[in-house]
């Protein structure tokens, strides 16, 4: 079993947990993920490893409460155990040899972008980070990014914190200031990654995105996580989750991500009702 050593809400809908998982901590690399099942009857959900500590044997996950699976996970208390925790899955991010990189994080995607920025920074790379959120209340990991970046721009859609606007505007401004990036790494909502790729395509900058489609096993067994990349079918869980953003068929990925929306909405409502009843 996998004990929750620490739990903290970073904002009203984003939760951070530090999990006791020594074998996974020993092997984890930035870009890899775990599959989590909170309770014995929960769904299997993929969550990117947002930090790890090989000495203390811990793995940190940061997740947004989007569906029933994440909601159930968020109700588990410090000191209790998670039913299933499998990993590290997927290929590690390829960060070797990069000298100057723009790391773009959108919303909870920042939790995935952060270990990437950190590792780059540690290896001596110049890191410019742009993080984007809907509003001030949702801003997360600002201090962490500050420590892992040579430059950090925080954007909010409504301008309630940092600069007003989308991450693409900030990225384009940085490029226009004359910054020459070896690579842009974009992690966040599909739409954000799609538009970051549109910008970088214009400037001919290599762009890596981290895909997080619906998954079950995370080992290449179900094909539910498949994407079209460069005209070929790829399984995000074993061939990715990182892909060349200029080759990903985002429209298809966006369409596929809505496959179970109706079911998820129903279940979420049911879960909310249950939670509020319990609270009463």
């Amino acid at each position, binding site marked *: 079993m996998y004990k929750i050593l620490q739990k903290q809400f970073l904002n009203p809908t984003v939760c951070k947990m530090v999990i006791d998982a020594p074998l996974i901590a020993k092997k984890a690399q930035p870009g890899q993920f775990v599959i989590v099942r909170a309770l014995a*009857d929960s769904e299997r959900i993929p969550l990117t490893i947002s930090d790890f500590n090989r000495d203390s044997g811990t793995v940190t996950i940061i997740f947004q409460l989007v569906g*029933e699976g994440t909601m159930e996970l968020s109700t588990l208390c410090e000191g209790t155990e998670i039913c299933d925790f*499998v990993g*590290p899955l997927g290929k590690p991010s390829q960060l070797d040899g990069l000298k100057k990189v723009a790391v773009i994080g959108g919303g909870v995607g920042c939790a995935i972008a952060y270990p990437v920025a950190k590792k780059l920074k540690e290896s001596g790379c110049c890191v410019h980070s742009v993080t984007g959120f809907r509003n001030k209340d949702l801003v997360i990991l600002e201090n962490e990014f500050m420590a892992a970046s040579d430059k950090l721009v925080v954007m909010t859609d409504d301008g309630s914190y940092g600069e007003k606007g989308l991450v693409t505007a900030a990225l384009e401004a940085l490029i226009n200031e004359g910054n020459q990036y070896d690579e842009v790494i974009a992690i966040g909502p599909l739409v954000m990654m799609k538009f970051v790729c549109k910008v970088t395509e214009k400037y001919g900058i290599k762009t890596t995105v981290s895909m997080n489609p619906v998954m079950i096993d995370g080992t290449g067994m*179900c*094909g539910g996580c498949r994407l079209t990349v460069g005209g070929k079918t790829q399984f995000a869980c074993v061939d990715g989750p990182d892909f060349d953003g200029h080759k990903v068929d985002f429209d298809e990925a966006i369409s*596929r991500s809505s496959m179970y929306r109706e079911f998820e909405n129903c279940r979420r409502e049911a879960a909310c009702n249950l939670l509020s009843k319990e609270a009463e």
Partner: protein
Amino acid sequence: MVNMNPEKCPMPSQDPMVRNKNFGEVALGYTLEMAVEEAQRCLNCKHKPCIDGCPVLIDIPAFIAEVAMGDIRKAYEILSQQTSLPAICGRVCPQETQCEGKCVRGIKGESVAIGRLERFVADWYRENCAEKPQPTAQNGKKVAVIGAGPTGLTCAGELAKKGYDVTIYEALHTAGGVLVYGIPEFRLPKDIVKYEIDNLKALGVKIETNMVIGKVLTIDELFDMGYGAVYIGSGAGLPKFMGIPGESLKGVYSANEYLTRVNLMKAYLPTSKTPIRKSHNVAVVGGGNVAMDAARSAKRLGAENVYIVYRRGMQELPARLEEIEHAQEEGIIFKLLTNPVEVIGDENGEVKAIRCVEMMLGEPDSSGRRRPVVKPDSEFVIDIDTMIMSIGTSPNPLISSTTEGLETDKWGCIVTNGEDGLTTRNAVYAGGDAVTGAATVILAMGAGKQAAAAIDKMLSEK
């Protein structure tokens, strides 16, 4: 006294129109009287052709003779000399091409119902003999088994009985392999699989779930942890797609995904937290057991029209005969000599139809089966809202790609020396679907048993 009835004693089953709406087991099993009556149809032939048809060489006439005399415990003992999973094999083996295919009674009438008798004996034993197996005194040697499917479970059980300290590492959260994620409840109740796994644990076998070997630990690290040998039973779980346009539309599944949602994640229960599509018209592409299981699951989940789309004919369907018959009884529609060429979507990216062509059978190919060729100008469209691809699977490269010196062939199957499953790596053995590609439970079980004997020999000589 031989019972000369030319037909098998019929299997009590749920009515097709009832069972196609529930996930309860289809075949209900013989009573003791039926089993004895059926057993008396066996002629106890001197040359025992049925045994030649059995991949694990069960002494079939001997166990049937005990059933005929009503000594079911004795019959079970004979079975368990050769098979460790009789309740499972009795339900899922393709008996018509194995033991029953060789039965002399089959020449003029129906063969003896060997599979049903095997199932009866195993079920009877499970229900009437409560004793759990006892662990054998340990010999102090450790073996690691990768994968808790039939091959891994069998290898582990055999080694534990010889006193080895065995740990199974399984990637999923539940042990059982295809028996739990693929084959549906209505054909193989999961309680039976769980019973077998509990017995293994009683023997002292340790099962570590959530361990993806190649990721969390490599085979080399297993040796560092003190294991003297490793057995790879990781199956053939990588789904194939056809590569036709539209396969990424919403509503197109691999059979593995569809069945995993239904079986492992229990999506057929209203309380399940794992979603599955509510379908009306479903096309399942393929003709094997997997296709039948997917089609019959879709029917049970409420689909009105479920089509099996297969490019060869009825004779060529690779599924077990019983599954084909059951599928037909349950109202599955067979679109044979038909091949999809395109999946058509609507404006929301949902599948709405498949474009197919008619096929005809041409010259036999290298496998000896007649090769299907496209009939000119035969395109037509079937309206569907769900498509399930069941055209085969291959071994997952996770282990082979992380184990230096472990050779695979061009299909990704692990290369072994044949009989005892030794791979190109010292002290690493492999068997089951990981070696053969998608095959059968009984072959996987047999391979596990042979490898266990080879591992025992290797480690005792050390």
